């Protein structure tokens, strides 16, 4: 396959970026999108040019490191897929593909397609953990959890922190990410105890990082590689209101 690329090149967060044209001739349809970028970079290195920088790690859809806007959509045209799990068979020979970094004020551009997503980490640090002393590792069955509880907690825990929800949101809101983390811990007995502290801390951190509000457009779930439900956001709102209205400090 022959693929025409328009790739966003930007030196750092302070400089202006723009699309640069590239052509990759020897694309195999079974290559992943990142392998196609590798092919391009190999060519650029050989020509003595600076390769296109992008984030990646596991390349199997579980780490959340990869993630770029492909033709104006986070993680590209396939719904609920990471960039590394998107394959070139989703494109046609001779296609022109626009590749741009995720854009949000809270995600400063490091270089080219690489962004700094530490804002999401700081939201986790502000409350996405269990702080009560749980003692020694208990006997596995001493805390009864139903299959359904475990499954729905896992549905929320499946978030890989890629930031596609923020990038897909017209307000650059991190509500899906934060909602998923809060719901995940709220659904399990170890996490439940601290929900009210956690939810206020994490919501405040989300605010401080400069993410936008949630308009319930639900675009985030559509593009989320893990199909995290927007009901996690409603759950966050519920827990937040409950902790503000009902919990005595």
């Amino acid at each position, binding site marked *: 396959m022959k693929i025409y690329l328009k790739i966003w090149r930007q030196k750092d967060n302070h400089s202006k970026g723009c699309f640069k044209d590239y052509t990759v001739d020897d694309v195999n349809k079974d290559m992943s999108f990142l392998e196609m970028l590798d092919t391009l970079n190999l060519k650029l290195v050989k020509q003595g040019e600076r390769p296109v920088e992008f984030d990646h790690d596991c390349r199997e859809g579980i780490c959340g490191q990869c993630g770029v806007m492909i033709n104006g959509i986070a993680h590209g045209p396939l719904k609920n897929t990471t960039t590394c799990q998107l394959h070139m068979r989703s494109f046609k020979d001779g296609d022109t593909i626009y590749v*741009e970094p995720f854009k949000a004020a809270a995600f400063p551009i490091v270089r080219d397609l690489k962004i700094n997503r530490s804002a999401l980490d700081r939201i986790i640090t502000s409350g996405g953990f269990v702080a009560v002393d749980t003692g020694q590792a208990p006997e596995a069955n001493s805390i009864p959890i139903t299959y359904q509880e475990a499954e729905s907690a896992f549905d929320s825990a499946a978030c890989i922190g890629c930031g596609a929800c923020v990038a897909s949101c017209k307000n650059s809101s991190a509500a899906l990410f934060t909602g998923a983390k809060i719901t995940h811990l709220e659904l399990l007995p170890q996490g439940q105890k601290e929900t009210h502290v956690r939810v206020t801390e994490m919501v405040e951190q989300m605010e401080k990082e400069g993410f936008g509000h949630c308009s319930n457009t639900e675009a985030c779930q559509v593009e989320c590689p893990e199909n995290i439900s927007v009901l996690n956001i409603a759950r966050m709102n519920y827990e937040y209101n409950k902790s503000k209205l009902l919990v005595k400090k």
Partner: protein
Amino acid sequence: MMIYFKNALTRKNLMALTGLFLSFFLIIHLLGNLQLLLPEKEAQLQYNLYSHFLSGNIVIKLVSYVLYACILLHTLDAIYLGIKSKKANGPKLSRDRRSRASTWQSRNMMFLGIIIFLFLVIHFKDFWYHYKFGELPHDENGNKDLYTLVVNAFDSIWYVILYSVSFLALGFHLLHGVASAHRSLGVYHPFYSKLIRILGYLFSILITLGYLIIPIIIYIKH
């Protein structure tokens, strides 16, 4: 404490509450205005009596203050969140096809809201202000003749079109707004969430049709 007021979740709660109150008001307002469609003579006396009753009642007066406050707070919140969203977006995408993942109305609540707001300004000026502070002739029961004022206004096709466009904007605003408001307030149960969406759609369609037919029928009848 400050962050509590500046916080998007709190703002969205307020927006949802004011929006839902306004939605509730829309039902009452529609039922009252359907009296305009009664046979002509009856409609005139009945509608003028109704307006007279509303303007004289102290409870209605208090509710109307809540209503004005809701419109104001809802609009202020819209502006606040709009600015916040702009700031959070940072640099614009050069190629943006994100719209494929959401409904048109959910992305254009501000645009729809601005149409509603402009409509409200005209609506208040032409009817509410006129009724309250203007000189109006009286009907045979001695009530101010709001009915004739309204019916004459809808003689103009442009006025009918203005109202129809505004009601459609309102309809789309509600199509997203009613369900969204419940989410903002924290309804996370999958079944009720779906039910609310369906009922919200039904509500929006009925309200929109209800308001739409009034100017159109009056225009055709006269």
